[in-house]
Every structure is written in C-alpha cells, then in structure tokens.
C-alpha cells in the first residue's frame, strides 16, 4: 500500500500511509484506537475507497470496489466481531455465498471437498463440517472464519484484534495456525493492541498515530517500550500506578456461592481500600460469579453479604446497597449506545422527576472529570470511541457513588492511553478516598494477567467454576496464575 490518504469530512483519517508486506510474512499494524488502522484495512478489503494512493497486490494495481471483489482476489479480512451465521453448520458457513451449484442445486460433494481441504489446512480435527457454529467455542468459530478465507484461496489474511476474546491457550493455538499459514506463503496482516503478542508472532510492524506512519521496524530489534513510545508519542512511565493502600472494613463476603450456569463454588472477602482480581480462562465462570453477585443471574446456593445485608439480590437492590457493575459486553449490555451520554450516565440514579438540564450539568462534570472526548452530554454513546464509551460506563458508577465496583474486563478493546486512565482511576478510588468518606473496593475480572498483577492487591483464580484462594500479588506471578487457571495445580 502506498501513499494512502482518506478524509471523512473535515477529519483526516489517513495521510500518506505506506507499507509493504512480503508473501509468507506476518506484518503487524499497531496503534491506538482511532489511529487509522481499521480505516486502512477497510480500504484494503474494499469496504471503502481511498482518496489518494495505490495498492499493489503481487505487483499489480489492486482496486477492489467492494469486499466481495477483494475476497475473490485473495484478500480476506477477519473482523474482531465474528460474522458467522450461528444457526448454520461449519460447512454452510464456509461456503456461504459461493456455493457451487448445478441446476440451482448445491453440489454437496464438491462443497464437502473444498471444506475438508480448508479445514485440513487448519489442522483442527475437532471442527467437523457438519457441526452447528453456535455449538462451537469462540476460538473455534474464529478458526471457521479463517477456514472460510482459506476456502476462497486467500493470499492476504487480515486479522483484526484476533485475540481479544481468546484465552491464553487458544491464543497459542491460533499462533500455531498463523505460523503454518505463513509457511504456506500466505501474507498475514495482524492488527493488535497487545504488543507482547505482536512481538511474539509478527516479523515486522508499522505504527500508526493520528492517521500517519509513526514508526516501523522489525519486531526483533525493537522493545515493547519503544513500540509504546511510537504509539503514544510519549513514554508511559507508570502504566500501573499503585499507591499505598490500607485495607479497611470487610464490605463484601461470599460463602460457598453457586449459580445455575458455570459457577460451581466461590468464596471471597473484599475489604474497602483494596483491588481483588479474578483471573481465569474465558468461560471458567468469572462473569457468572459477578452476575450472580449483582443479582443478574439466580443463585443456587450460598450466601452473599454486602456490608451487613444478607437478603435476596437484584440489580436495583445492589445499586441501593452502593454496589455497581461494569459489564464485559459494552455494546450489548453495558451501555444503551443509541442513547445519549447523559442518559447513560444517570440511568441508575434517576429521581422520580427528571430535569434534563440537571442531567446535562451532572454529565458535563463527569465528562471533564474523566476527560471523555465528545461533543457534549447529548451526544450518542455509539459515536464515541471504545475507550470513551468505557469511561461513560465507569462514570455511571462514580456518579452513583458506589462503594463496591464490580469490573468485568474493564480495559477490553480500549486504547493504551484510556487503559492508563482506567488504571489510575481504579488506584485513586481505593487509595485516595474523598474527604470524610471511606475508600472504595474493587473486584475486577480480567483475562490480561499483566494488568491484574499490575493493579490488584490480591488475585484469586477461577477454574471450571471454582474460585481458588485469593493470594497477595507479591506471592504469585503470571506462570503460577496460568497453571492454576488451566487446572494444573
């Protein structure tokens, strides 16, 4: 890609961006949210057209008019949000839109052959052609999407944040496949926030910042710190702040809690002025624990004690007991994205009579307090970037002045600068209480171990629905947590 530029109205999304990747190379594109990575990839995959610049594929000018044309030329894009039809089988999904037919009838034999060949390239025997996609785990579904690209005979595979919803183990498997595809001569463009992964899997990289190339190089000769520096244009000295904290009264206690889904058994004690982390694989029951605790899912047995309260739970009661929850699914549950920032911030704490002017005033306070980038309290949440949306969701709990914050994947899909802000905010909440108020308590679920180790005081590991003992951060490390999460302890 050479000299690519794109404007949206007055905003310059990309200016003169160039890079080139060779066959059989894993090339990483990194940058904060809004840096222009997605726009660049949308141009490559034909979803939008560039204002200036050219793309060359195998030395020929490549100008896809739409995504289908790009796919047929061998450029396949796999988005963060998977685009599979959950009711159809693996086979039907792979062949969707390109079924070979004779007299309007699908030629099943030929379909089976193409699908089997594609799946063989993936080397994952557990994904059988006849299985319904909704019965597969997220990681396997992602492989089906890659399989769809292989069946098309792709030569350039674009992976947009492929690991954001995968566990460590699945990431390992994905990386194996990427390596195999690379050995087959396929070019892989890898977009990610996780620089550790980029360093592990990619050969070379380009950093985008504000729509322009901010740096490029080989992953081997550049440290993660150098990459971060290129991304943010400044050094983030203290990504994980940790002030001195003094744990206070116990504010939340769980005894032998079980739910009807994955949660089998959980017990923990959370005190004011501490951050308790919950590690574990996706699907181990971490989210179910928070949901049961917050009254979103029914409890099968066990007791939950919030302060002195021991009764039944519902989200409304929990808010009244000064507890708030941040959902892992920002667009599906956390926020009503079609509504305004003001409505989202104040939804949990409305008086019987609502004064819109007051809603606005309150929102303006939190917009400046959390430095949410927006046009004003009336702007729709859907128009904001992921990081700013997350700040709105967090702002709701701050506005409600809750004492206990349940955070489910608070930094998922947000840029480095916003992450740093979220970490700082969590640290402030537990270590620097407002005058005359007790410190707050945070219970935080995350798949990203470095951040748990960075900001938590204690960490407990969830494995197959059972929550292990919470250990002080100083006594554990990534390796130990991983062993416990995979049930090897």
């Amino acid at each position, binding site marked *: 890609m050479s000299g690519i530029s794109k404007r949206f109205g007055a905003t310059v999304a990309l200016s003169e961006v160039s890079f080139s990747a060779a066959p059989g190379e894993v090339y990483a594109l990194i940058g904060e949210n809004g840096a222009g990575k997605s726009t660049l990839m949308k141009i490559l995959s034909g979803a939008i057209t560039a204002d200036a610049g050219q793309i060359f594929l195998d030395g020929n000018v490549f100008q896809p008019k739409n995504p289908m044309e790009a796919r047929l030329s061998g450029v396949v894009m796999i988005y963060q949000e998977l685009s599979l039809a959950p009711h159809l089988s693996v086979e039907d999904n792979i062949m969707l839109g390109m079924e070979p037919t004779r007299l309007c009838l699908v030629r099943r034999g030929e379909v089976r052959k193409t699908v089997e060949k594609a799946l063989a390239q993936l080397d994952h025997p557990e994904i059988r052609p006849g299985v319904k996609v909704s019965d597969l785990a997220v990681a396997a579904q992602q492989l089906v999407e890659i399989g769809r690209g292989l069946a098309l005979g792709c030569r350039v595979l674009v992976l947009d944040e492929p690991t954001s919803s995968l566990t460590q183990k699945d990431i390992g498997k994905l990386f194996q496949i990427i390596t195999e595809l690379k050995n087959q001569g396929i070019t892989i463009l890898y977009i990610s926030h996780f620089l550790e992964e980029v360093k592990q899997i990619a050969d070379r990289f380009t950093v985008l910042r504000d729509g322009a190339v901010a740096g490029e190089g080989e992953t081997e000769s550049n440290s993660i710190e150098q990459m971060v520096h290129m991304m943010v244009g400044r050094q983030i000295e203290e990504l994980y702040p940790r002030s001195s904290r003094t744990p206070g009264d116990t504010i939340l206690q769980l005894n032998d809690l079980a739910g009807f889904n994955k949660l089998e058994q959980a017990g923990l004690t959370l005190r004011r002025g501490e951050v308790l982390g919950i590690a574990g694989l996706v699907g181990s029951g971490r989210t179910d624990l928070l949901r049961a605790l917050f009254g979103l899912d029914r409890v099968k047995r066990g007791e939950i004690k919030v302060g002195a309260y021991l009764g039944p739970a519902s989200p409304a009661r929990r808010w009244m007991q000064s507890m708030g929850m941040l959902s892992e699914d920002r667009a599906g549950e*956390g926020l009503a994205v079609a*509504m305004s920032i003001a409505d989202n911030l104040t*939804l949990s704490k409305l008086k*019987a009579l*609502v*004064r819109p002017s007051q809603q606005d005033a309150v929102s303006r306070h939190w917009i400046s307090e959390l430095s949410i980038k927006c046009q004003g*309290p009336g702007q729709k949440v859907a128009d904001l970037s992921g990081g700013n949306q997350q700040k709105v969701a967090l702002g709701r709990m701050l506005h409600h002045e809750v004492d206990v914050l349940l955070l489910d994947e608070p930094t998922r899909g947000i840029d480095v600068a916003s992450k740093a802000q979220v970490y700082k905010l969590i640290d402030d909440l537990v270590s620097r209480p407002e005058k005359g108020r007790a410190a707050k308590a945070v219970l935080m679920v995350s798949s990203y171990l470095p951040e748990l180790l960075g900001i938590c005081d204690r960490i407990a590991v969830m494995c197959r629905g059972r929550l292990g003992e919470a250990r002080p951060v100083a006594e554990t490390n990534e390796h130990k947590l991983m062993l416990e999460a995979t049930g090897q302890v």
Partner: protein
Amino acid sequence: MKNSEKSKGKRAFSIGQWLNVIGPVLGLVFVFVLFSAIGPASFRTGRNLETIARQTAITGTAALGMTLVIISAGIDLSVGSVIALSTVVIAVLLNLGVPPLLAALGGVLAGVACGLVNGGLITRLKVVPFIVTLGTLLVVRGAAKGIAHEQKVDAPITWLNSLLAALKPDKHWMILPAGVWLMVALAVLVWIMLRYTKLGRHIFALGSNENTARLCGVPTDRVKLIIYTLAAGFAGLGGLMQFSRLTVGDPTVAAGLELDVIAAVVIGGGSFNGGEGSVLGSLVGALIMTVIRSGCSQMGLPNWVQEIVTGSIIVIAVALDRLRRRRSA
C-alpha cells in the same frame, strides 16, 4: 464552529427529538396543502377541520399508549379489540342504569384489565409481545362479542354521546369537542411523563437496550406491566370516544384499527427497534392519515383509492425518515 458544537452538545436530545417531529409535521403540511389545492372548497372549511380532529381522536388517543409500547421495543396488537370491548362494556353498564361517568370509567377499566393481562403474560411467561397480543386480540374480541351476545348493544342517550359529536352552535367557544381536548390534555401528560419522569426515561432505556436497563437496576418487568396497562387503558378511552360517536356498543367495531394506530406511531418517528418515538409525532401521524382519508372522500375518490394512498404514505413516510437518518449518521 465553537458555537455550533456548544449548542449541539447542550441540547442534542431535544434537537434530536424536534428533528424527529419536524419531518412528520412537514408531511402533514404537505398533504393538507395538497388537498386544499386540488380538493373541493369544502375541504378548507373550519367545519371540516373540526371533523378531521374528531375523526383523529380515537386513533390518536390509542396512539398515545402505542407510542409508549413502541418506544419500549414492544407491540400491542390488541388495541382494536380493546376499543370494541370498551364500547360494549359502556353500553351494557348504561343499560343497567349506571351513571354515565361510572359507565365510562368501567369501559376504561375494562381496557386496563386487558392491559394487565397482556403485561402479565409478557413478563411472567416470557412470551414475545407480538404473540401475546395477537392472542389477546382474538380473546378480547371474543369476550366483547360474548358480552354483547354477538349484536350491537343499544344504549340510552347521555352526555357521553356529545364527547365527540359535532359542536352545537352555542358551544362554538370550545373550538373543538371535549373528546379532542381530552386527547390533547392526555398527550401533554404523556409527553411530560416521557421527558421529565424516571418512568419515562426507563421506558426509553428499556427499548434502547433492555440488558443495560436491567444492569442499571431498572425494574424491567414492572415497567413493561405499566406500559401495557397504560396502552390498553388509552385504548379503553379510545373505546369511550368510539362509543360517543356510534351511540351503541358494537363488538365488531375497530377491527384492524390497531394497524392504523401502529402506522400513526411509525409515521411519527417511532422505530420497531425501540428507543425512538414521540407523542407529538404519533398525533401528527394520526392526523396525516385522517387528512388523507378526508381529502380523498371529499374529492369523491372511492374507498379503494384511499386505501392505496394511505398504504403508500406509510411506506414513503418511514422510508424518507430512514433516509434522513442515514444521511445525518
């Protein structure tokens, strides 16, 4: 630049809401001017305007409730049947010698009862509103026919009949009949409820994203129960107005009226995805349909032409609205 940003940020909800309403209002002005130009002179008279207002009152009143339902991403197909049941209940009560005011109240309460059933089934059985209200559409219609022994129920003439009748010369100071004023007053109340009360914000949140509403402690089941009860209550009131026009309880009246009511809300900017809709828009939507009917019939166009025109207007109105949104997005 700075100024425009400021104003957009400051009052974007109300600006957004006004934009949603201005479209339908322009549509109303357009159809009215159109029929004034090509229709007979009688179309433009004050008397005809009064007739249009009277004819809109029933659909308009029911549309107030439907607006709440559609904002919450639901649907209520039973309103036509509820209107019929309400007329029958009022007539039967009048025949039993009940005072008119109490009989009218009885009609509205019959509606409220239907709404409680709708809401109860939707929240307890977790069946989608479309199916529940499709069922009650038949059940309530059947109940109305049963109570009326499958025929019209004559009732003594009372002041109820003047609610929606053409104004007598000595009452011209009222400008419009009491029933129309009642609808306007209720519209103002619903508008205030949607904009300035917790319940109103909860209805929008429920329609915009039910999961978020639940997470934020909105008692979603209770809010739904209130919505469907209010909607059927408004339909019961529509039944009172229908009774006022017919002077009899008719169990077969208003068949298919639910579609007019839904169309009014949708023309007025309501979205089946929830989270959108406005009281003023729904009333304007109801007016647009009456103006077209009135204009067509005064031009002597046959019924089938009216139907084709009304149907086309519904699709065109909503398509234009979506086009505008896509532009602005």
